[in-house]
């Protein structure tokens, strides 16, 4: 019984017979051909439109270009981390209000959660960029991007945390209460750590969305990767090459975030997430 070795194919389909095997081969060949054709036409259209001209690419050999991109990456990192932390704090608070025993705070929290989930991030950004300063709220540009992104993510974080907390078996709470802990102690020491563990992969998916949302930083002129890319574009008059490079960087960041999520998920499902820590403790 090696569950780790099972893939979704083992779950969804039975082992292929001879007919299915030849069908799979045919489809593989057709898809490969289509992929090749698409790639061919993409590169051909680059060529036809003169996008492969060295003048669009030469500046990537300069160290300053990469330093500039690196600075943008740091900006993206700052905005995403700050937004992530704020989203977690806000989401945690909203989750507490949502599950509290007071019906009034439940309703308010539910409304706030719906609001933050329903309104596009860009509208929050416009609010802090265009409207808030008129009301006397002047924020540094880092906050102008990370605060609205955090607000936009907070509702989802709240619901994800709540689903985790709800998934913890009822007996855990009863056991906590029975050794004389208060409801709050039981929640913080027993319920939340377990619920949090269940939803780490979902939270990381939300971080991916936060990272992508920080690309709105150009709206408030915060120098993130996207904003710096736009500067490069206007400097060298090279749209496609810069956007392509930046896209690859974003893909890499989010790919590794997702990989981290599935790694943690796997560890958690085999009980090793806390277990490994305990094993380390034992040998210290």
């Amino acid at each position: 019984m090696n569950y780790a070795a099972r893939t979704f194919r083992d779950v969804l389909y039975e082992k292929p017979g001879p007919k299915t095997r030849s069908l799979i081969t045919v489809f593989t060949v057709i898809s490969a051909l289509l992929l090749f054709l698409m790639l061919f036409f993409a590169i051909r259209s680059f060529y036809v439109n003169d996008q492969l001209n060295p003048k669009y690419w030469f500046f990537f050999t300069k160290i300053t270009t990469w330093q500039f991109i690196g600075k943008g990456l740091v900006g993206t990192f700052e905005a995403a981390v700050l937004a992530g932390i704020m989203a977690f704090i806000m989401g945690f608070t909203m989750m507490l209000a949502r599950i509290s025993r007071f019906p009034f705070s439940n309703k308010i929290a539910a409304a706030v959660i719906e609001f933050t989930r329903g309104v596009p991030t860009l509208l929050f950004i416009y609010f802090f960029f265009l409207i808030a300063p008129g009301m006397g709220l002047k924020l540094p540009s880092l906050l102008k991007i990370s605060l609205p992104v955090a607000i936009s993510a907070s509702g989802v974080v709240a619901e994800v945390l709540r689903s985790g907390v709800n998934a913890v078996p009822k007996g855990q709470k009863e056991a906590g209460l029975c050794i004389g802990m208060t409801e709050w102690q039981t929640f913080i020491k027993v319920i939340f750590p377990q619920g949090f563990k269940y939803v780490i992969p979902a939270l990381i998916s939300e971080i991916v969305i936060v990272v992508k949302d920080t690309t709105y930083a150009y709206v408030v002129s915060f120098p993130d990767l996207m904003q710096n890319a736009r500067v490069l574009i206007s400097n060298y008059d090279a749209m496609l090459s810069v956007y392509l490079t930046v896209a690859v960087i974003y893909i890499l960041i989010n790919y590794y975030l997702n990989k981290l999520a599935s790694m943690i998920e796997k560890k958690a499902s085999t009980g090793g997430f806390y277990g490994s820590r305990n094993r380390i403790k034992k040998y210290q």
Partner: protein
Amino acid sequence: MAPVIELKNINKHFGDHHVLKDISLSVEKGEVVVIIGPSGSGKSTLCRTINRLETIDSGEILIDGERLPEEGRNLAKLRSQIGMVFQSFNLFAHKNVLDNITMGPVTVLHKSHSTSKDEAMELLKRVGVGSEAHKLPSQLSGGQQQRVAIARALAMHPKAILFDEPTSALDPEMINEVLDVMTKLASDGMTMLIVTHEMNFARRVADRVIFMDDGRIVEEAKPEDFFENPKTERAKTFLNSIKSE
């Protein structure tokens, strides 16, 4: 001296279903009381009302002569004095065995980590799982988990321990290792209220047997009297039905 646990005229409904009908019982210090009865007779519910995991509709619950508070820190304090062992163990899944036991003493009794750790190791040895202290609950067998759960209850130095069908979720070969620990506890003078289906164990360990059916206490007697000469028809039928198994 007031009984450790005293219930007076407890009534409870689940919707239209009257699950506890005018129950009164008391458990004296050092006494082992076993509750038996067919499933659905309300014995687990009764057990759970004593530390207010289930609320009651009317009646009075006294712990050491003191009325069971309905909420807040006072309720938590009283709960800390009454241990509970569940059918499904309910060990804290994210903590290792040692941390499961020290959580109560550290959080509730404000003992130091090192004192509670030493004490926890003592208790684990006493219930025979001393070598498993650093494992997670999920790495233990059911019998081991239940023994850890008993150690967790003991770590609070409770006035009494409630056992809610402690062996019902165990594989047959693990039942005895848990019952042995409980027997030892009983002979050490622990006050215990046990809901169980283990008749031989009840006969051996109980000072008093309470037979429940349909939300009522039908019969209450010394184990030898109850098992040899049940007075009520209902108890006779029940005992016959389990004998034939």
